């Protein structure tokens, strides 16, 4: 539609474009630029070439962080692709009270990750509810928060728990578009529930599954809060549970923050995130052929 003023559209766009340029695109470019300098929080820094990247490769913490972030993707994504789909199928049917259940299942999404983290720290504590139950069942106490590996697994469980409702809603929208007749025809042919799930539901929501895989792998790779809250700011004893974003935050903030080094880390995070996303999308395209 035509406007009366030639620059009218730009007046509409100006606030959005300004904010996005100032706080997304410019910081992105300056991150790349900073990554080649030895800038600190209070000083501008000199060009040092690839020194930050070389240091990064020789930093054992970087490899620990990378390992943990990748493990997080491997642990979390399959569960977040599958469980919310099952959950969506459970709440899809219009039966009395279902709106209540849907909203209730969404509560963990609504709650802040800090709240969620603190709730689970309390539940998984050595003297917490879950250990009390395990002991009563005769299993003995489990150091969910003290053993580095268990801590990472616990954090993953919390991430999955918090994400279920979010992806459930996405699947719910996709399931609404699956024609009912397909299920009925399949049922008439004598297919059971599992069979119908595999031959009707999964193919119909395949593209949504890929979307969920892409979204959840990107966010799992960038995990910060869950681990920060459960393991502490330095990522547990010896930093064994540090993730990449935790390293960025540690290195780059504070008065003596090493902005240059943190920027190099950020660039690596960005490149790997992008790569992960392309990988998921490509895996899908290959399958479709």
């Amino acid at each position, binding site marked *: 539609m035509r406007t009366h003023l030639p620059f009218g559209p730009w007046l509409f766009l100006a606030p959005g474009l300004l904010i996005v340029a100032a706080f997304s695109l410019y910081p992105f470019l300056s991150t790349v630029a900073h990554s080649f300098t030895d800038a600190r929080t209070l000083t501008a820094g000199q060009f040092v070439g690839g020194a930050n990247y070389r240091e990064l490769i020789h930093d054992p913490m970087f490899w620990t962080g990378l390992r943990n972030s990748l493990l997080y993707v491997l642990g979390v994504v399959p569960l977040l692709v599958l469980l919310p789909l099952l959950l969506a199928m459970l709440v899809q049917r219009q039966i009395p009270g279902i709106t209540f259940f849907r909203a209730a299942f969404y509560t963990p999404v*609504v709650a802040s990750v800090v709240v969620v983290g603190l709730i689970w720290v309390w539940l998984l504590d050595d003297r917490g509810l879950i250990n*009390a139950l395990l002991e009563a069942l005769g299993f003995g106490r489990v150091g969910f928060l003290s053993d580095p590996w268990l801590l990472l697994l616990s954090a993953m469980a919390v991430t999955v728990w918090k994400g279920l409702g979010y992806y459930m809603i996405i699947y719910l929208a996709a399931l609404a578009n699956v024609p009912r007749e397909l299920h009925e025809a399949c049922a008439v042919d004598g297919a059971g529930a599992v069979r119908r799930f595999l031959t009707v539901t999964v193919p119909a929501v395949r593209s949504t599954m890929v979307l969920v895989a892409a979204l959840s792998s990107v966010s799992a790779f960038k995990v910060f809060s869950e681990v920060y809250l459960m393991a502490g700011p330095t990522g547990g004893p010896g930093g064994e549970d540090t993730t990449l974003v935790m390293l960025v935050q540690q290195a780059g903030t504070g008065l003596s923050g090493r902005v240059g080094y943190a920027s190099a880390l950020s660039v690596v995070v960005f490149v790997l995130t992008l790569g992960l996303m392309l990988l998921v999308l490509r895996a899908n395209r290959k399958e479709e052929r």
Partner: protein
Amino acid sequence: MSTLGRREPERREPERREPERREPERRAGRERAERRIPRWQLLLRYLLLLAVLALTVGPFLWQLSTSLKGAGEDIYRYPPSLIPHDATLGNYAGVAKIIPVWDFALNSLKVAVANVLTNCAGAALAGYALARMRFKGRKTALVVFIMAMLVPVESIMIAQFVTMRELQLNNTLLGVVLPGCIGAMNVLLMRNAFAGLPYEVEEAAYVDGANAWQRFVRIALPSVRGTLAVVAIFAFMGAWDDFLWPLIVLSDQSKFTLTIGLNFLHGTFADNQRLVAAGTVIAVLPLIVLFACLQRSFFRGVGEGAVKG
């Protein structure tokens, strides 16, 4: 009228018939479903629903219960009891004595409300221009927003922090609000919503001499209330719940938002679970209440395709 953009009839149709037909349709569907599901299957369904309910809501209830347990009650005792024997609100007063939790809540509220207003206004304006106006550079503008959406916040936060320092906005609430105050994702959501509206009404207004601003405010905006509500809820939740960015930008305790304050409380008084629990309840309760009030329109808005891939 050759200036019109492309039409999307398949999106338009449900939008139009939605208000009058949806409710009876849904009821009919419900009756049909009830008739068809065998009773044992329905029972199984409810059992599963209750199990998931316990798993998703149970932890919150346990936290609430802990926050209500008085000093005389052993919170580690076995068997654990969900109902406090010695219920008290004392822990809430206790939190307020240790950290200025109500000030933190006020800070969070300021940030969240600002975020809702700027996101709704900014995203609607930009979305409308992208969907409904024809001008040179429209494609470029769209690409800018898409690119901005692809840059993960985590990989630019140090540069944002440096920028805030240069602007002397670090350690201010304005500094917390600014980077997310018009989300590129929201702009694209609004654009999709506007693109789905029928053109006829706007055409009539155009012929009557309404300018772009009048068409935007009086005709287009009221028609996308559903998406606007979704943007508002997400903006509020995002700001109220955010942890990483406020953690980086804020250093002065008087400026803390609730999430940062809670982390501080947890770090300092890790041993007093009752107080930490009370703090988390204060942080989560307003949001749950807000969500419970808005969930109907929220799920409808999301279902209409706002968050569809």
